């Protein structure tokens, strides 16, 4: 048996474990627990926003239905499908990495990045449309009638929540790009897979937040 060197594709796992960790499975679980702890803070970040949505919606339900009708459901639905598909790509990329299919991993991560960028492109187009339709509070909001104030509150929530989400998508794309670049690099397989698994959790979480934002933003008021 030859000792592995840094040059070989699969360097020893033992050398990749920090001193305070005993085993590879322990390292992997610690990584996941760390990411879930971070995601808990993210749940509460978006949770606070969603609480404010419910409070204002309760105060003025008709305005929120009218505001929901003003959103672009075709773009919203398409964007949801893009994010769901990108999540599938990342989940599949992780499985491919677990089976040492590094080129497939890189291709799937690349596809997920393209889908994420398309999501942001469509979102930007949607913002431009909303600007043209005078729906941006504080910039050029112009609606009259008894629902006007409630519609403005809805769109404040809309812009804060979707911009915050878009920042998360952008960060996620950056993280995925790093893992796509490292896919064929000289890193112990188990270490790469553990890192990718943690990154994937973040990407899926961004998808999860969007699932709820979609239901709260695009679906109200469609039946009336």
């Amino acid at each position, binding site marked *: 048996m030859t000792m592995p060197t840094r040059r*070989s594709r699969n360097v020893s796992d033992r050398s990749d474990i920090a001193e305070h960790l005993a085993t590879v499975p322990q390292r992997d679980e610690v990584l996941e627990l760390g990411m*879930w702890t971070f995601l808990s803070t993210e749940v509460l970040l978006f949770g606070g926003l969603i*609480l404010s949505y419910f*409070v204002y919606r309760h105060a003025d339900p008709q305005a929120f239905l009218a505001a929901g009708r003003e959103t672009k459901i075709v773009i919203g639905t398409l964007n949801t499908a893009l994010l*769901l598909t990108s999540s599938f790509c990342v989940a599949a990329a992780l499985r491919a990495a677990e089976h*040492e299919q590094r080129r497939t991993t890189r291709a799937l991560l690349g596809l997920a990045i393209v889908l994420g960028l398309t999501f942001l492109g469509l979102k930007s187009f949607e913002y431009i449309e909303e600007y043209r339709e005078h729906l941006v509070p504080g910039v050029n909001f112009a609606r009259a009638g008894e629902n006007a104030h409630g519609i403005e509150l809805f769109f404040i929530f809309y812009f804060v929540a979707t911009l915050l989400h878009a920042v998360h998508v952008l960060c996620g794309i950056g993280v995925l790009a790093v893992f796509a670049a490292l896919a064929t690099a000289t890193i112990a397989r188990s270490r790469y897979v553990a890192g990718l698994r943690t990154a994937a959790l973040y990407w*899926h979480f961004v998808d999860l937040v969007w699932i*709820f934002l979609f239901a709260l933003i695009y*679906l109200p008021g*469609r039946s009336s």
Partner: protein
Amino acid sequence: MSEIGRPPPRTWRPPIDLVICWIALLLLLGLTVVLSYQPLASLNFAVAMTIAAIKAGLVAAIFMELRHRSGVVRAFAAAGFFWLAILLWLGLMDFLTRT
């Protein structure tokens, strides 16, 4: 170490559980959009949130692999949502009970 000499399989297909989950998510997306156009009065909101919760559950269980995780990881994952439940429950208590 022994993996260096082992040739990787020639073809790789995406795991069937992920494919089924992805198709189910897209079908649920179509369903929630179609149902949102049906006049169900106050049920529209309940239907939209229920389908969103099912989609989130699929993502968490299958894409995030929580179904294969130990109790500790699941507890960490559930913690944030437990706190969120407290936030929404107590935050909306007044509105839900006021007549």
